[in-house]
């Protein structure tokens, strides 16, 4: 993945920029020593690394405003960073940028159970939002796999999803308001503890804008009461087609599970070897989870098992207790770890219409042979969000490039099947140059026009989301304006 060359004029005034930042922040909040900036050289897309010119760790909205105002005046690009767990390179620095990390801003500002909201600073981790309300039996619904580490700031930037979004939606469906700092330092309040926008739905376009429109420092989130209980059922089938048909039949029957997870044979084998969850060896495995009281769960699972039986499962296993439920989820939850044991891997996240599942899986299998790299599939089947994991060896020359080429072909296949490049990870740098597969130049122009309005100088996370060729004129203007 190509990144724009650093601007020597910006590098030349590093000392002045650092000095100005130090004038508005505590001493330990400005990191500029080359050895220390390395800590911010990459996010979870570790194949790409570049230490930033400096990193700043503000503790308040006011400090964020001061930082952005200074960087705006100095013409320095700013890359916002939550916890750095992006799989798409959303927080990858350039050598001439300032990383703005919100990790120190992790306070709960307000919990309000009557109105079912929580207001937090956005450096707070996803799981600790639930942690702040679980003693009252409430929770924050979006649950990305990285929820132990990932920050709400990053969730908002990427519009993160999770395993349970079939029922509860993704970040954008659970975000009610933000305090956001614009690139020129202006602080805006958008939305609040009410349910709809008074004018244009700006919140809707801010969520998922990958840190390119502003830095969100505080967020009002919807919290929900925990269900009485939840229980999964596991089913194995001898073909992907059959498992796909089961998913479709469950949805058509009017049951709305909270999660329907799908694993193919390579994934089952790897997970089984790693976690020993007792999975059956078959072509496709489904984990379906439903919620409610015990009686409600029994009823829903009864219906689901009826549907499952019609398609001749090789295995159908219901969790009798919490321990068995844990074992059913164990393999799925360790899928990524299991893959990491085998090799380096690249995780994709294209989404497809559920009906195209068998076709897309068959084509991925064929392509795996063509490219000579193994691929395992684990994904959120209810909403068609795939997670093909391509295995490669980072130490073998050319393997990363082959892997990326294979990944690009899979994502093109997703778009061709009626889907999209990314369902929950975001574009970042990873899928940036594939955007023209899904959108025309005019479609992208409409999106870039939004950034023009929020960040006219194109200083916020400028080299992401849009193919460099498409954003070049705008980024060049920013440089020329100095």
């Amino acid at each position, binding site marked *: 993945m190509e990144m724009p060359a650093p601007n020597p004029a910006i590098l030349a005034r590093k000392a002045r920029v650092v000095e100005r930042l130090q004038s508005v922040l505590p001493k330990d909040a400005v990191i500029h020593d080359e050895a220390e900036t390395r800590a911010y050289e990459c996010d979870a897309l570790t194949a790409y690394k570049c230490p930033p010119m400096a990193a700043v760790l503000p503790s308040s909205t006011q400090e964020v405003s001061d930082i952005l105002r200074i960087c705006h005046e100095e013409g320095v690009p700013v890359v916002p960073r939550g916890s750095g767990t992006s799989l798409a390179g959303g927080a990858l620095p350039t050598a001439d940028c300032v990383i703005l990390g919100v990790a120190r801003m992790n306070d709960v500002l307000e919990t309000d159970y009557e109105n079912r909201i929580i207001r937090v600073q956005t450096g707070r981790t996803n799981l600790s939002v639930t942690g702040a309300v679980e003693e009252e039996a409430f929770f924050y619904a979006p649950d990305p796999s990285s929820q132990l580490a990932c920050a709400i700031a990053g969730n908002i930037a990427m*519009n993160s999803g999770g395993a349970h979004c079939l029922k509860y939606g993704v970040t*954008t469906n659970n975000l009610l308001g933000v305090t956001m700092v614009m690139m020129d330092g202006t602080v*805006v309040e958008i939305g609040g503890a009410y349910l709809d926008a008074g004018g244009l739905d700006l919140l809707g376009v801010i969520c998922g804008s990958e840190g390119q429109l502003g830095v969100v420092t505080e967020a009002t989130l919807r919290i929900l009461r925990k269900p009485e209980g939840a229980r999964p059922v596991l089913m194995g089938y001898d073909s992907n087609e059959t498992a796909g048909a089961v998913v479709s039949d469950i*949805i058509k029957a009017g049951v709305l599970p909270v999660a329907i997870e799908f694993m193919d044979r390579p994934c089952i084998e790897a997970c089984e070897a790693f976690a020993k969850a007792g999975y059956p060896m078959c072509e496709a495995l489904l984990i379906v989870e439903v919620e409610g009281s015990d009686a409600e769960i029994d009823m829903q699972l009864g219906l689901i098992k009826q549907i499952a039986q019609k398609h001749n499962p090789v295995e159908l296993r219901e969790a009798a207790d919490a321990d068995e439920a844990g074992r059913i989820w164990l393999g799925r939850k360790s899928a990524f770890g299991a893959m990491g044991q085998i090799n380096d891997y690249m995780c994709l996240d294209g989404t497809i219409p559920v009906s195209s599942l068998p076709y897309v899986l068959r084509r991925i299998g064929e392509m795996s042979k063509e490219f000579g790299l193994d691929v395992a599939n684990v994904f959120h089947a209810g909403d068609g969000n795939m997670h093909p994991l391509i295995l490669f060896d980072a130490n073998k020359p050319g393997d990363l490039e082959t892997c990326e080429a294979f990944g690009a072909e899979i994502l093109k296949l997703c778009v061709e099947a009626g889907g999209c*490049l990314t369902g929950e990870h975001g574009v970042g740098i990873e899928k940036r140059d594939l955007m023209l597969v899904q959108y025309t130049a005019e479609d992208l122009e409409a999106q870039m026009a939004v950034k023009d309005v929020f960040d006219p100088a194109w200083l916020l996370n400028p080299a992401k989301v849009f193919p460099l060729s498409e954003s070049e004129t705008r980024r060049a203007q920013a440089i020329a304006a100095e």
Partner: protein
Amino acid sequence: MLRPETEAELAEIVAGTSEPLAVQGGGTKGMTPDGVVLTTLGLSGITLYEPGALTIVAQAGTTLAEVEAALDAENQRLAFEPMDYRGLLGTSGEPTIGGVVAANVSGPRRISVGACRDFALGVRYVDGAGQIIKNGGRVMKNVTGYDLVKLMSGARGTLGVLTEVSLKVLPKPEALATVIVHAPADDDSAVRAMSAALGSPYDVTGAAYVPADGQVLVRVEGFTDSVAYRAGQLQDVLKDFGEVTVEASDASAVAWQAIRDVTRMHGVDGDVWRISVKPTDGPAIAARLEALDVMFDWGGGLIWALMPRGTDLRAKLGAFDGHATLVRADAGTRAALGMFQPEPAPVAAISAGLRARFDPKGLLNAGLMG
């Protein structure tokens, strides 16, 4: 009236004019911006419907009735429960699916499943320069680039004329029950009752309060046994707020339609305002209005107020956390007060900037949203 039959024709019309256009679907929402009427009614038809994928795609001018009939045949529905404005506004014609998305029209179920914008998966539209743009798609999870789908939902045609929308749909529940709290002590107590119900684990899909009737309505939907169980549990949750009864009949479906369409204000003289607030702020705000009639939906977070004609409700309220929309009034009042709550300066600047970029000639429903 301009009535293009294809997206390309619509694009040609917009590209070729410098006169203001009053963009509408079926024209049932009573919006009357200046300009030649441009209707999307000629762009009609369901292009794709996959019940197993919970997805429908339709051209913008497809009537809501046609979409709902197609879904009904597969035992599915638009879960966000779009309101029908005709009775309240005294308009005629057929609401279109494009109009529903353009105005982000959502009903009582918004409190649990989300608004229209939460179900909008993709759009195609013609911007103010006459360009055809697409955003989103037809899959449920999509974070590829900026979410212009949300931006178009609720923009009321000011950023572009919708030509096609794709929506997530949900299964129709087998049963419905309404738990009714009779004669709550006061408005605060009524909102607290709704908060208690919505904060319970019993999946409430509607919570409304009609002060004049002295009734709090709490809705549960789903499989028959489950509905009976949850309605029973909610009776217990709500017992301290007043006498509680359960209605599990068609009558209760009619009651929810009356809430959705604000039936009690149909044909009654006065202006109608819609105020969005934090639910527990609702009673105090409603008390300040000196309204002729009020009704609360969304657990108290949505106030419908009937006001004496010409009243500047926003002036009465002063600064508050939320916004007020003027839904029904004569032309003079609408011109004087504006339909939408004025935004704080930095937010208004963003909105104006977006309009200038999406509609550089200022043609589309000019002045409607600021």
